[in-house]
Structures are given as structure tokens and as C-alpha cells.
């Protein structure tokens, strides 16, 4: 099997059908030199210290010599000394001795802090889900590209599945362009914590705790009065900060499959939800969401917690037998994909990590498409290049909602 660049070029010259195979940005796209502290330790900061924050920080420091130099959280009002403890992430990012930033805030802060960190020259490991809405992900990906910084999403399932031979075969089939009609159907059934992460709507506003900067917590989202579940894990149940169990779990769940099925550089074109009309404030129940890609591949999320089961198509993986004999030979001649680069390797070598901003953004788009289909209550068509809904101006309002000043993308 040819694995050299010459072999690839020859293969590409032999077939026009494989144009899409190498369309994803190669892993060694960014060649900016590593940025090191004078004492050879990387300076690390954790922004968003509750919930998943400490674990996200630990992931960031794996196989790297990192000294923690700052912790930042909007609930540190009573202990912020602006030396180790901060409430304002902007003061952390202006420090020259911080190289790496772990972001463990709720998702409504992920994009803004990631972007500001890249603009400040830092590398980022960001908890999932990557974003609260579609335009945020595009802005993050573009910013990290502009500044040649490293972004890795805080979910790592693709690193394991991309080593499995069977998964590699499916990945190659999907990326080859040899399938005349893609028969693949992936159904994720259950495990999306829909009821668990539904928000509460019967709570009277309260005065925020003295140690919490509520205005800063709300950030770019619409200002709402404080009720306890809007902060501290249960924020997941409110559209202003996340997108329910679907947003919380689906990036985690779908990220490995997005790699297996070779969809890191595109998005579905048709989305349909089976769900009750959405609530304006809280994420609530839904039945299933069907998302079709342009090549015919179908992705289904099924909650198993509301309404009838999804019964349109059975799950089915693409297999070699779906290809004609000539295509199978060509596929066998294709090189395997390069191993995914970890965050630590990426920081050292300036290669793009496996869960880079573009790939993470494409995965986050899936959650957002699903939630927007729920929130609009109608079948939607999506343009994966423009990253906009087609012929539905009202749906696009959910793809890029305005931010509260002074925050903007």
C-alpha cells in the first residue's frame, strides 16, 4: 500500500472521485514556533473553576510541564486577589506568564474566552460543548487560524476510535467519495439526559449570592434575574447558557462518530425534529432529530424520553460491499489517515490537535442544528458552506443571536 506523498499524488491523479478525501485541513497546518516561558515551564490558568473545570485543567496539563498561575471564576468575588484568584478573565489573559488556558465555564462563555485567549497568544483546551450557537464556532475557528494558536475541545473519544481498524475502514469509505449513494445511518439512542437537564420555570428571582458576580456570569447572554439553577451545573437547562442534555452530551457522544464517518469538514443539509413546541427559557423534552448530509448519510438523535420512537430508517454502517470492485481496489490503495495529534503534542509541535477548532465546531453545529429544529418546530435546510439556514430567516436568528454589550464575536 503506498503511504508516501508520491503514492497519494499518483492515486489522486488516477481518480476524480476521491477529490473530497483530502479536503480536511492536514494536521500539520500551523507552523508557528512554540511559545515557552523563560523557565521552560508553561504557565497555566483555569477559567471557570466549578464543575468540570478542574478536570479540564488536568487534561490540559497531561504530558506537559505546567505550573498553575491563575484561577478565575465569577464566584470568586470574596477571594479575588488578582494574583492567583480572579473574577475577570481579561486580567488573566493580559498576563505574559500565562501560556495555556483551560476553560471550564458554562458554554455561553466558551467562545468569547477562547477568542480572547487566542488574541492574547494563548493556547486553549476548552470544555465541551464548544459553543452556545453556530456563529460562535466559526469565529473561534477563524481566530485560532489567524493567530496560529492551538485549540482542543475537552472531549477525547475520537482519539481512541481513530486507532481501530474497522473504524479506519469506515472512515476511508466515507471520505473516499466512492459511494454512489451513502446508505449509512447512525442512530444515537438514549443517554442524552433530556429530563435530567431540563430547566425549572417556577422559581421566583432572588438576590445573587454575595460571592457571585451575576452580571459577569450572564455575560453576552440576555440579562435575566438570578434564580439558583441558572448557575452551577443546572445552567444546562437554560437556552441562555447551554442547550439542555442534548448540548451537554451530544458533543461528547458524537465527536468520535463524526471522525469515524468523516464529517469533520461539513454539516447536515436537512434537519427535522420530532418534539413539542419549545419553551422560551428552558430546554425541555423532545423525541428525536433526524439530520441528513448531502451525500445521503443520516444521523439520528433519539432521546427515548418523549413520544414515539424513531422508525424511519434502521441504523446501518457503510461497508466495503457498498462499493464496486474497482472502488474497493482504489480504497485499498489509499493511505490510512494520520494519527491524531494530542493537545500536548500540538503545543510542542504547533501541529493541529485531533479535536481542533474546525472539527469541534462541526460537531457543535450538530447540537445547534438539532436544538434549532426543536426551537423553530419546522423542517430546516442548512448550507454547510455558508453555515446558514436556507430560506428561513427566522431560523438564522438562532444561528447567530445578538450578544449583550460589551461582548461580541
Amino acid at each position, binding site marked *: 500500500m503506498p503511504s508516501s506523498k508520491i503514492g497519494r499524488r499518483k492515486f489522486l491523479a488516477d481518480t476524480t472521485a476521491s477529490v473530497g478525501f483530502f479536503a480536511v485541513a492536514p494536521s500539520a497546518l500551523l507552523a508557528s514556533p512554540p511559545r515557552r516561558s523563560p523557565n521552560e515551564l508553561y504557565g497555566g490558568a483555569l477559567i471557570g473553576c466549578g464543575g468540570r473545570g478542574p478536570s479540564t485543567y488536568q487534561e490540559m496539563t497531561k504530558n506537559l510541564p505546567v505550573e498553575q498561575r491563575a484561577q478565575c471564576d465569577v464566584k470568586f468575588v470574596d477571594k479575588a486577589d488578582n494574583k492567583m484568584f480572579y473574577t475577570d478573565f481579561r486580567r488573566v489573559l493580559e498576563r505574559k506568564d500565562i501560556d495555556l488556558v483551560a476553560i471550564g465555564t458554562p458554554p455561553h462563555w466558551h467562545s468569547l474566552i477562547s477568542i480572547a485567549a487566542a488574541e492574547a497568544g494563548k493556547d486553549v483546551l476548552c470544555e465541551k460543548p464548544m459553543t452556545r450557537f453556530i456563529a460562535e464556532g466559526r469565529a473561534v475557528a477563524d481566530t485560532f487560524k489567524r493567530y496560529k494558536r492551538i485549540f482542543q475541545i475537552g472531549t477525547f473519544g475520537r482519539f481512541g476510535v481513530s486507532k481501530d481498524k474497522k473504524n479506519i475502514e469506515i472512515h476511508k469509505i466515507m471520505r473516499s467519495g466512492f459511494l454512489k449513494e451513502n446508505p449509512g445511518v447512525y442512530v444515537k439512542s438514549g443517554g442524552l439526559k433530556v429530563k435530567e437537564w431540563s430547566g425549572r420555570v417556577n422559581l421566583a*428571582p432572588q438576590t445573587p449570592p454575595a460571592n457571585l458576580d451575576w452580571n459577569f456570569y450572564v455575560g453576552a447572554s440576555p440579562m435575566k434575574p438570578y434564580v439558583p439553577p441558572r448557575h452551577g451545573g443546572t445552567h444546562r437547562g437554560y437556552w441562555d447558557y447551554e442547550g439542555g442534555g442534548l448540548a451537554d452530551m451530544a458533543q461528547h457522544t458524537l465527536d468520535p462518530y463524526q471522525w469515524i464517518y468523516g464529517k469533520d469538514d461539513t454539516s447536515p443539509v436537512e434537519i427535522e425534529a420530532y418534539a413539542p413546541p419549545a419553551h422560551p427559557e428552558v430546554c425541555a423534552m423532545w423525541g428525536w432529530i433526524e439530520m441528513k448530509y448531502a451525500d445521503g448519510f443520516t444521523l439520528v438523535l433519539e432521546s427515548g424520553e418523549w413520544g414515539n420512537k424513531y422508525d424511519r430508517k434502521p441504523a446501518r454502517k457503510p461497508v466495503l460491499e457498498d462499493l464496486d470492485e474497482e472502488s474497493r481496489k482504489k480504497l485499498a490503495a489509499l493511505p490510512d489517515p494520520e494519527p491524531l495529534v494530542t493537545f500536548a503534542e500540538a503545543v510542542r509541535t504547533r501541529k493541529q490537535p485531533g479535536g481542533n477548532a474546525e472539527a469541534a465546531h462541526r460537531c457543535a453545529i450538530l447540537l445547534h442544528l438539532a436544538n434549532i429544529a426543536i426551537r423553530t418546530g419546522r423542517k430546516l435546510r442548512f448550507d454547510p458552506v455558508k453555515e446558514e439556514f436556507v430560506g428561513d430567516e427566522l431560523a438564522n*436568528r438562532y444561528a447567530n443571536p445578538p450578544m449583550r454589550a460589551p461582548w461580541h464575536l
Partner: protein
Amino acid sequence: MTQDKIAEAVEQVPALDKRGTFTGPAWEEILPAVDSVLSAGKDGVVAVVAMLKDVDDGADYKARYFLHVIAQYVGRPGKEAARATFIEALASQLGGDRPKGVQGYVARQLQVAGSKDSAPALGKVLADPDLCEYATQALLAIRTGAVEEFRKALPELKGGPRLTVLQALGVLADGASVDAMKAAIADADREVRLAAGWGLARIGDAGSVDVVLKAADVDAGYERIKATSSALLLAEKLLSAGKKADAAKIYKHLQGTRTDPSEAYVKEVASEGLAKAGG
């Protein structure tokens, strides 16, 4: 349709569970009630608004939800007439005696379903500190007709509403607001300065290069980081508009001033940009 009948329709929204979480009815279960309210025209929608309370503590959750269901429903193809009625009804509730909490909620429903026809009503409340943010967000979502409302409001605004509207003009990349932004880029308030610089960058005005670069040369800190980002954005805009010399001026400046090792990454971006600009 009487208020009692409207209340009866709204009452069809299911009760909350013990935990206070929500399971909506299936669309086919609630649509007859929605259609019955819409069949009463503007008065039917206003009657639902009348059921809202100032404070969202769950007591009026059925009416809030019902109004939002209508907002989703009228966005469907073929529902244009119903949408126009819905918008007219909601717009009529802004700027009057309704509690601010209710007006804020109404503005948020216009963010979902409003059109250019609701822009003047939203513009009317931009000067209200309690409603400015919601009205701005609705206008930005609607887009058509928004810029005129922001331009009209800006000169009279102070404090938070001024920043909100100034930023909104930047979001819309309003070329007619260049002078206002050039004045604001030297404001005493850091957030106003940053919003103005970002707005000028989004507009892509070649005549703003000098003021944007001056703003970016502020002492080290967050403002320098963000203002530098705006300068790079302006350079990209100019480059894509074919104004290579103006873009090159920005890149050369950043290349020459970002000499501290902690800003080497900016220098690198500038050098790449300069190569593209042919400088």
C-alpha cells in the same frame, strides 16, 4: 373572542411536574388553541400579553409559553398573515403602560418572529435603560429597519444604552456611523473605545486606519490585545476590498511595534498579512 375564551385556550398548556420542569404538549394538541387565539386577530394576541406578569416567577408560565408557541408557529411558511397580526399586536404593547418585565418579554418574542414592521416600536424603547438591551437584540435579529432606529437613538443615549447601541451599529457595519465611532474611540470608557474600534474595523473604512492604530498602541493589557485584534480585522477587510496600501499600513505598523517577545505572535500575523498586501 372574550378574555375568558383566551384564558381557556392558554389553560390547555400542561401543568408543570413536581420538580418544576416542563413538558410541552405535542404540536397537534396545542395548535387548535393557538389557531383559536389567532382567529381573534390582534386582540387575541394582546389578550395573551395581558395575562403576563411583571416578574417571571412561574405564576404566568402558561401565558409566556403560549405566546412563544405562537411566535414559533407564525414563522412557518404560509403563516405570513398570522405573523403580521402577531407582530402588530406585540409592537402595540411597547412603550406604553405595560410593566417593563412584560415589555421585555414582548421584545424577546419580536426577536423570534418580528419583522421590519416592528422596528419603529422597538426603536421607541431604546432610550429606556430597562428595555434597551432587549430591544437592541430584537432589532439586530430583525436587521431590516434596525440601523435607522439605532442611528436615530444614539445621540441621545448615555451609559449602558449608548454602549449597547454603538456596538449594534458596529454589528451592522454601518458606514454612516463612522464619524460617531471615530469620536467614541477616544471616549473615557474603555468598553466604548473598544466597541468603536471594533465597529470601525467591521465597517472597513480606509479613513479610519490612523485612529484604529492609535487605539491599538495603548499600553500593554486587555485593551491593547482587543484593539490590536480590531486593527487586524480592519486590515483584512481592506485587503479583501482591494485596498492593499491601506492594509499594508496596518500590517507594517504592527510589525514594527509588536517587538516584545510576548507579542511575537502578532508580529507573525502582521508579517503574513503584509506579504498578502504586497508590502
